[in-house]
């Protein structure tokens, strides 16, 4: 059975939401296969484009059939050429999508308490995750953080999807002034959460992992590394991850991720925008070597 589709999607809606754009695309076949934490890779620039590489976005929501056939939703921050092109799309414009990609958030087998932490547009996949968790009887608390109020995504939706919501902003323009890691210990303690799900910048994922570990919870984090293909064939998106056998390997975050157990990621390798190959990685360069 096919677990991924490639379709020429049609834009249904493109709405501005704070600092982001919320894009809805008709993409038949995706919803049936997708689970929260997976992502979509979209081609950008149209037929004359100089930008060859697809752009990846967390699936915010999917719906198997609506007025227009199956749709998917993504939340996009306009940054470089590709995201500017995508956020400039109008209804009826076409966009080629490949989805769903990557491994979804693993779901607990027991109805445990959970905390879902999103940084900026990183909250996009969490509302759908929250619904799925609550269907399984899990308690869901959400913590949404961002630099400023306009960079928070989904505060209203959070109140609907979660049993409790905590907001932080770096500048204090909404919620508690500070970082998600400042409030997270209290939320975990209060709810007795067994799993903390995180999506957002790498630095945030690292501190979520640290806080979760310190409080006896498991962190499941969705990472973001530059991806050339999104489907596992190029090896650009790798990061050092420790496997069940205790060995570290450079694994592809597009197919073995984007969701990893936080304590399996070799956070020590990430620094200043670079991720080094830890010396104990399988096949790491030897002195004098490659």
């Amino acid at each position, binding site marked *: 059975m096919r677990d991924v589709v490639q379709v020429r999607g049609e834009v249904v809606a493109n709405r501005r939401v704070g600092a982001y754009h919320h894009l809805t695309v008709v993409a038949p076949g995706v919803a049936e296969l997708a689970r929260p934490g997976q992502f979509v890779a979209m081609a950008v620039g149209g037929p004359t484009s100089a930008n*060859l590489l697809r752009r990846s976005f967390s699936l915010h929501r999917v719906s198997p059939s609506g007025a227009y056939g199956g749709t998917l939703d993504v939340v996009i921050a306009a940054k470089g050429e590709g995201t500017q092109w995508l956020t400039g799309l109008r209804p009826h414009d076409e966009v080629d999508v490949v989805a769903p990609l990557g491994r979804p958030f693993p779901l607990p087998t027991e109805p445990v308490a959970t905390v879902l932490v999103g940084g900026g547009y990183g909250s996009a996949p969490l509302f759908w995750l929250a619904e799925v968790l609550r269907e399984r009887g899990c308690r869901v608390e959400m913590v949404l953080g961002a630099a400023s109020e306009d960079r928070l995504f989904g505060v209203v939706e959070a109140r609907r999807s979660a049993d409790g919501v905590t907001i932080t902003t770096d500048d204090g323009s909404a919620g508690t002034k500070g970082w998600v890691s400042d409030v997270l210990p209290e939320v975990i303690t209060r709810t007795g959460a067994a799993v903390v799900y995180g999506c957002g910048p790498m630095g945030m994922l690292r501190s979520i992992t640290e806080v979760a570990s310190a409080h006896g919870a498991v962190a499941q984090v969705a990472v973001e590394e530059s991806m050339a293909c999104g489907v596992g064939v190029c090896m650009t998106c790798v990061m050092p991850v420790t496997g069940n056998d205790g060995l570290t390997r450079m694994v592809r975050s597009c197919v073995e991720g984007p969701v990893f157990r936080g304590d399996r990621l070799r956070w020590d390798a990430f620094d200043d925008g670079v991720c080094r190959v830890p010396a104990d990685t399988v096949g790491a360069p030897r002195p004098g070597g490659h």
Partner: protein
Amino acid sequence: MADLTTRLGALTLPNPVMTASGCAANGRELHRFFDLTDLGAFVTKTVMADPRSGRPTPRMAETSSGMLNSIGLQGPGIAAFLDKDLTWLHSIGARVVVSIAGNTAAEFAEVARALASHPSFACVVAVEINISCPNVANRGLVFACDPMSSSTVVGLVHQELPPGTPTFAKLTPDVTDIVAIADAALQAGATGLTMINTLLGIVIDTDRLRPQLAGITGGLSGPAIRPVAVRAIWQVAGAMREGRIDTAPIIGVGGIRTGLDALELIAAGASAVQVGTATFNDPSAPRRVRDELDAALDARALTLADAVGIAHRRKVQL
């Protein structure tokens, strides 16, 4: 349906379209998008003797109509490759071209030896010798930048393979005279040539004001470089036609995104083509290129064999 059959020396393939090494992993991922046996052959990621972690990240930078990569030949090593990847490719009935490399000429031979002695060697239709990689023994100079090193590697690999195994030496375009390197590889016994590997490039991150790739330099690929690939093929095919070097089949690679792009490389002299970076844009690209090439040949009432090198015959006499 045009007749797409192609001959590469003694090897006959049902169609000329292949994946490019390093742009299709070892097959499982693309098999989700199309049946790999639809291709003329599947080319594996270059494999070396031992497992390799590859380089730090960032490993990629998008460029105008192309990209830079610095993967650093990450791979599982030949033993795991044979048992897991080649065995799987064999099981689905793919025709496989195995790309091999080494830090030294001896390592190339070691990899070839292991390959030839594995049961799944049965599915291997050819070996691609990726000499566009650094030679540790020669100050890291790329083997294919030097005719001597190129011929040493090709010669040693040949000794390890069953006689008659088709081999293709993969050349870098970053040389003053690609015909000289092609000549050296053919003299040393290569069945044919694969052209071209990536061009050496650098992108500067203008926010951090430092190279965007952790490894500083990377390989430039994609449609941006297609005119360089066509030129390299043209020059080498031209030298063959003029009898300056031995005649041998050429596999063209570099910037193919559509069937017409493939036709450019074929008309310049390639008997088969590989689709690399375009696969990142469209995971179905290799099969789509095959179908588009088929239609383009049909529209021109040509078979694949007619089209190989046709631009040399049709070139304007000034």
